[in-house]
C-alpha cells in the first residue's frame, strides 16, 4: 500500500494514535479504485476512516478543482456534527480543503454559490442531494466527483430514502463515471445486502467488505422494581424513582422511550421525583429545531445530567459524554437495543453501561431475550423490498428539471440502482405516463402535460412552473398535517398533529416539550399556548408502533417452554409461569395456545400468537368480524405484542374455524382496502410521487379549506381506476409496513396443526397482561365509524343534560 501523506501521519503521531486496520483497509480499497462498505461498532473512528482516502487525495492534488467528495447522512444534524469532527482534523493538519454543508436549512444564496463554485467536500442529506440533481448546473458540478460516502447506511438503505439515494447515485455515476462508492454502517446481520444496495451493477462482490475491530461487550442490566414486576403497562413508569437514582449516580444518562407520548410522560414522572433539581432535558422529533438544538448544545457542553429521548437520538450523534443508557419498556429488537446502547461511551475498549426497564412480565421475558440475543451477537433481519414507484417518479421529475432526457437512457440508468434492478420497461413507462399527466387510462389531461416528448426523442419539462413546483414539494418524509405550537411572543416549541389540535379547545391543557401548556387559541397554522400548572394530557401521535421482531418473539416463546431457563428470572415472574403451567398450559415454541373462559357474564378468548401488536390488531379485527357473523355477539378485543383477546356475549366453543387461512383471502383484503392504513399510505405516495402538493404551512388561509382530502381522491380512484399505479404503490407500502401480512399468513397457515385449545373455568395467569388492557386502551371493536358516532352522541347528550 502506498504511504499516507506526511500531514496525516504526523497528525496521528501527534495524538499518539495509530491507524487501525479498518482505516488502512479503507485506504487500500480507495487506492485500488474499489467501492467499499465499512461495518464497525460506534466509536471505532468510522467516519474518519471514510474520509481519510479523500483527504489524502486532496493533499496529493493541491490544484484539484471542484467537488471531490460528497458525504450523505440521513440526519441533518449529523451533517453539522461531522463538519465539526472532520473540520477539526483537517484544520489541525493545516490543510487547505474547503468543506461545506448543504441541507434544507442552508440559506439559498449559499446554495446558489455552492452550485456555481462547489467546495472540495460537501456534506448533505439524501433529499438535498436529490434537489441538487434537479438543477442544470449539476452536470458540471459533479463532473469531477471522485467519491460518495454514505453514512449510517443501516438506518435507511432498505427504506424509501434509501431508494431515493440509490437513484441519485445512479444519476451521479452517469455524470461522474469515475465516482467511487463508500458506505459506513453499524453492525448489521447481513452486510452482503448492504453491499448489494451500494453496488453500481447489482453485484455485491464488486464492493469490498471492511470490518472494524469488535468493541468491548456492553454491560446491560435489567432493572427490577422494588416490589413486583407489574402485570401490565409497557412503559416502565413505575420505576421513575429508581431511574432518577441512576441518573444521580451517573454523569449523563440517556433515557430512551419507544414513543414521543411516552417520552413526555416519563419526563413528567422524572421531574416529579427530581428532588435534587438536576438539569434534565427532553428530545423528540415533534419538538422544534430550535428546541432540539438547544438541548443538543446543553448536552455537548456538559450542562445536562439526564435526557429523555426517542428514536430521534438513535443515530450516531456524538454530542456528549454519555455514560449510561436506559431503555424504558422493552427494546422490541436486538439491533435497536445495541445501537441505543452504543450512544453510551464512544470508546471502543470500554464497555457501555445500559439498563432495561421492562414494563410488564412479558416485557421482562422480552428484555431477557434481548440480552441473550446481544450476548449471542444475534441481530435483526433487514427486510429488502423492491424500490418504491412514487420515489422513482420523484427522481425522474428531478432529473427532468435539470435537462432533457431520453427514456431509453433513463431506464438503463435507473436499473443500475439496486432497488430498481428488476424494474420492467412496462412499469417504467407507466411511471413516465404518471409524471406526464397523471397516468390515467382516459388520458383526460393531455393538454396539461408536465413533461413532453419532443420530436428529437427527448423528454422536457413543459413549463418552468412545474420545475418550481417539484423543488417545493420534493422529499421523502411525509408528516401528518401539523400545527406549530407557539407562545404569544412567537416562540415556537414544535408541532402537534392537526388532528390532535382539532380536538383541543381554548382552556384545554396538554404536556409538550416537558411543559404543561394551556391552549389559548388556534390561528391559521398556529396553536397558541401559555404555560400552566394545571394537570394536562399528552398529545397522541399517529406514528406506528415498533413491532416486536421475530427473533425476540422466538426467544420469548422458547423461554415459556423451558423451565430450566426460569431459574434466571425473578421470583414473581417464575411463580407466574409455574401457576400458568398448573392452571392451563405453556405452549411449545411452535404451538398456538388459545384459551377460552367465562368471566363476569362475558366470554373470553385469548390467543398467544407472539406476532407483534400490528399483526394482532389486524387479526383481532378480522376474528371479531367472524364472531359477529357466527352470532357470538363480540363486544371488543385488545392486543399487545404477545397475544390478543376477544370478548363476547356467547362463548367460543371451537376456535378453529375462526383461525382458518381463508380469512386472508377476502376478508383481510377487503378490510385493508377500506382501512385508514391504506389511506395513509396513499397520502404518502400521492405526495412523494408528486400527484398533489404538500401542505405548506405558510400557505394556509384562515377558515377555508385550501387543500383536498387524499382520502376522497383515494375513494374515487379506487372506484374508477383500481389498477392505477399509485394504488399499487400504496398497497405495496401498506403491505410491507404495518400489517405484517407475512407474519399473519404464517400464523394462520400453522394454526390448524399447531393450535392447542384450553377451556378454563376462569382467567389464566398468562392472560392477565393483555386482559388488563380492556377498559384502559378503549380500543374499539370492529365497529364502523357509525357506531362510534352513535356512542359519542350518547355521551354528548349525557354531558349536556341539565339535570
Amino acid at each position: 500500500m502506498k504511504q499516507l501523506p506526511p500531514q496525516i501521519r504526523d497528525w496521528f503521531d501527534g495524538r499518539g494514535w495509530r491507524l487501525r486496520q479498518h482505516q488502512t483497509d479503507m485506504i487500500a480499497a480507495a487506492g485500488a479504485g474499489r467501492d467499499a462498505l465499512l461495518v464497525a461498532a460506534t466509536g471505532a473512528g468510522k467516519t474518519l476512516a471514510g474520509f481519510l482516502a479523500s483527504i489524502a487525495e486532496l493533499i496529493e492534488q493541491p490544484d484539484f478543482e471542484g467537488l471531490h467528495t460528497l458525504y450523505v447522512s440521513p440526519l441533518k444534524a449529523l451533517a453539522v456534527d461531522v463538519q465539526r469532527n472532520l473540520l477539526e482534523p483537517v484544520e489541525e493538519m493545516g490543510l487547505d480543503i474547503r468543506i461545506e454543508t448543504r441541507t434544507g436549512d442552508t440559506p439559498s444564496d449559499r446554495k446558489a454559490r455552492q452550485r456555481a463554485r462547489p467546495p472540495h467536500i460537501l456534506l448533505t442529506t439524501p433529499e438535498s442531494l436529490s434537489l441538487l440533481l434537479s438543477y442544470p448546473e449539476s452536470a458540471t458540478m459533479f463532473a469531477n466527483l471522485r467519491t460518495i460516502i454514505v453514512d449510517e447506511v443501516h438506518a435507511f438503505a432498505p427504506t424509501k430514502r434509501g431508494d431515493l439515494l440509490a437513484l441519485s447515485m445512479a444519476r451521479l455515476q452517469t455524470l461522474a463515471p469515475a465516482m467511487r462508492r463508500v458506505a459506513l454502517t453499524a453492525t448489521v446481520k447481513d452486510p452482503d445486502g448492504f453491499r448489494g444496495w451500494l453496488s453500481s451493477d447489482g453485484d455485491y462482490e464488486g464492493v469490498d467488505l471492511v470490518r472494524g475491530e469488535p468493541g468491548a461487550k456492553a454491560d446491560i442490566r435489567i432493572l427490577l422494581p422494588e416490589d413486583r414486576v407489574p402485570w401490565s403497562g409497557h412503559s416502565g413508569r413505575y420505576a421513575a424513582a429508581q431511574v432518577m437514582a441512576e441518573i444521580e449516580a451517573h454523569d449523563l444518562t440517556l433515557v430512551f422511550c419507544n414513543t414521543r407520548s411516552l417520552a413526555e410522560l416519563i419526563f413528567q414522572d422524572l421531574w416529579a421525583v427530581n428532588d435534587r433539581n438536576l438539569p434534565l432535558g427532553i428530545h423528540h422529533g415533534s419538538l422544534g429545531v430550535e428546541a432540539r438544538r438547544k438541548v443538543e448544545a446543553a448536552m455537548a457542553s456538559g450542562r445536562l445530567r439526564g435526557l429523555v429521548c426517542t428514536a430521534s437520538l438513535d443515530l450516531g450523534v456524538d454530542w456528549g459524554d454519555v455514560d449510561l443508557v436506559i431503555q424504558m419498556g422493552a427494546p422490541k429488537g436486538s439491533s435497536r437495543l445495541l445501537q441505543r446502547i452504543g450512544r453510551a461511551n464512544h470508546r471502543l475498549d470500554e464497555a457501555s453501561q445500559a439498563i432495561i426497564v421492562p414494563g410488564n412480565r412479558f416485557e421482562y421475558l422480552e428484555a431477557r431475550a434481548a440480552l441473550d440475543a446481544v450476548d449471542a451477537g444475534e441481530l435483526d433481519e433487514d427486510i429488502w423490498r423492491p424500490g418504491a414507484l412514487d420515489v422513482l417518479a420523484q427522481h425522474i421529475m428531478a432529473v427532468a428539471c435539470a435537462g432533457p432526457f431520453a427514456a431509453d437512457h433513463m431506464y438503463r440508468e435507473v436499473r443500475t440502482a439496486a432497488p430498481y434492478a428488476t424494474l420492467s420497461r412496462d412499469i417504467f413507462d407507466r411511471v413516465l405516463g404518471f409524471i406526464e399527466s397523471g397516468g390515467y387510462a382516459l388520458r383526460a389531461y393531455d393538454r396539461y402535460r408536465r413533461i413532453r416528448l419532443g420530436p428529437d426523442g427527448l423528454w422536457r419539462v413543459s413549463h418552468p412552473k412545474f420545475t418550481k413546483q417539484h423543488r417545493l414539494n420534493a422529499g421523502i418524509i411525509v408528516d401528518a398535517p401539523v400545527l406549530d405550537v407557539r407562545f404569544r411572543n412567537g416562540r415556537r416549541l414544535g408541532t402537534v398533529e392537526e388532528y390532535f389540535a382539532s380536538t383541543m379547545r381554548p382552556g384545554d391543557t396538554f404536556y409538550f416539550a416537558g411543559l404543561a401548556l394551556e391552549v389559548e387559541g388556534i390561528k391559521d397554522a398556529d396553536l397558541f399556548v401559555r404555560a400552566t400548572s394545571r394537570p394536562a394530557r399528552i398529545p397522541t401521535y399517529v406514528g406506528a408502533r415498533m413491532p416486536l421482531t421475530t427473533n425476540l418473539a422466538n426467544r420469548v416463546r422458547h423461554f415459556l417452554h423451558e423451565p430450566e431457563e426460569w431459574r434466571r428470572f425473578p421470583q414473581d415472574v417464575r411463580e407466574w409461569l409455574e401457576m400458568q403451567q398448573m392452571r392451563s398450559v405453556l405452549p411449545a415454541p411452535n404451538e398456538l395456545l388459545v384459551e377460552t373462559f367465562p368471566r363476569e357474564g362475558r366470554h373470553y378468548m385469548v390467543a398467544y400468537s407472539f406476532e407483534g401488536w400490528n399483526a394482532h390488531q389486524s387479526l383481532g379485527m378480522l376474528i371479531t368480524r367472524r364472531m359477529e357473523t357466527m352470532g357470538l355477539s363480540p363486544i371488543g378485543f385488545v392486543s399487545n405484542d404477545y397475544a390478543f383477546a376477544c370478548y363476547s356475549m356467547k362463548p367460543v366453543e371451537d376456535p378453529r374455524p375462526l383461525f382458518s387461512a381463508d380469512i386472508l383471502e377476502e376478508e383481510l383484503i377487503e378490510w385493508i382496502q377500506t382501512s385508514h392504513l391504506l389511506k395513509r399510505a396513499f397520502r404518502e405516495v400521492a405526495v412523494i410521487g408528486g400527484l398533489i402538493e404538500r401542505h405548506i404551512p405558510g400557505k394556509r388561509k384562515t377558515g377555508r379549506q385550501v387543500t383536498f382530502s387524499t382520502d376522497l381522491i383515494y375513494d374515487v380512484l379506487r372506484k374508477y381506476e383500481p389498477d392505477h399505479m399509485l394504488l399499487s404503490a400504496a398497497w405495496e407500502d401498506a403491505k410491507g409496513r404495518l400489517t405484517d401480512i407475512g407474519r399473519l399468513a404464517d400464523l394462520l397457515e400453522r394454526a390448524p396443526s399447531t393450535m392447542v385449545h384450553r377451556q378454563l373455568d376462569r382467567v389464566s395467569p398468562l392472560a392477565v397482561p393483555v386482559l388488563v388492557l380492556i377498559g384502559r386502551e378503549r380500543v374499539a371493536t370492529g365497529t364502523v365509524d357509525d357506531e362510534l358516532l352513535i356512542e359519542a352522541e350518547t355521551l354528548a347528550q349525557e354531558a349536556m343534560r341539565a339535570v
Partner: protein
Amino acid sequence: MVPLSFAGHDLTPLPDGALWWRARRALLLADLHLEKASWYAARGQMLPPYDSLKTLEDVAAVVAATGAQEVWCLGDSFHDRDGCDRLPDDARALLTGMTARLDWTWITGNHDAGFADACGGTVVEEALVDGLLLRHEAVPGEMRPELSGHFHPKLRLRVRGRGVSRRCFVVGERKIILPAFGALTGGLDAAAPPILKAVGGGAVSALIPTAEKLLRFPLAA
C-alpha cells in the same frame, strides 16, 4: 330516515349529504364542485379525472332513491365558471339527462359565479321557495328561514382513541347549512368560528344522518 322540522316544513337530511323536501318532492344539494380535479390538473396536480362522474352518479342514485322531481343546487356546483365546458362525455350525458328530465335549478356560488347553463337547468342567484330562502352563502342578518351551503361543514370527533370525521348539517334557529355533496370536497370543522358566525346566535347543532338515526351534536348553546 328522520325528518327535521324547520320553519314549518319537514326536511330530511340524508346520509350522503342531500336534504330531502318530501312535500315538494325536491332535493337540495350544496357544493358539488364538479370538475374540481381538472381545475387542479391545469395547475400541475393531476387529480383523478373521475370526480364529476362520481358526484353525478351519486346525485342520480339519490334522485332514484327518493323519486325527486325537483333539484336545487345551492351554489359552487362547478369548481369554476368554465367547469361546465370541461365535463367529460359520460358525466355530461348523465347530467344533461337529469336536467332534461327534472326541474333543475342552479344557484350560483362564489366558485361558479357567472357560469352559463350549457348543461341544462335554470341559473339563478338565489330563490325563495315556499317561504324558505335558498342561497349559496348564509347572510348573517337574514331574518327569513334560510338554506345554504358554502362552508362544507364536517364534524370531527375522537371516540375510543379513533378519529371520526363526517360531513354534517349545521342547524341554527333560522338557518341550515348543508354539507358539501361533491366527491372531492374537503371540509371545515363544524364548530369553526366562520360557521358559527354564519349560522347566527342561539342553539346550534351538527346533525349527522345515519341509516337508522339522526344524530345531533350540540355545537353552541
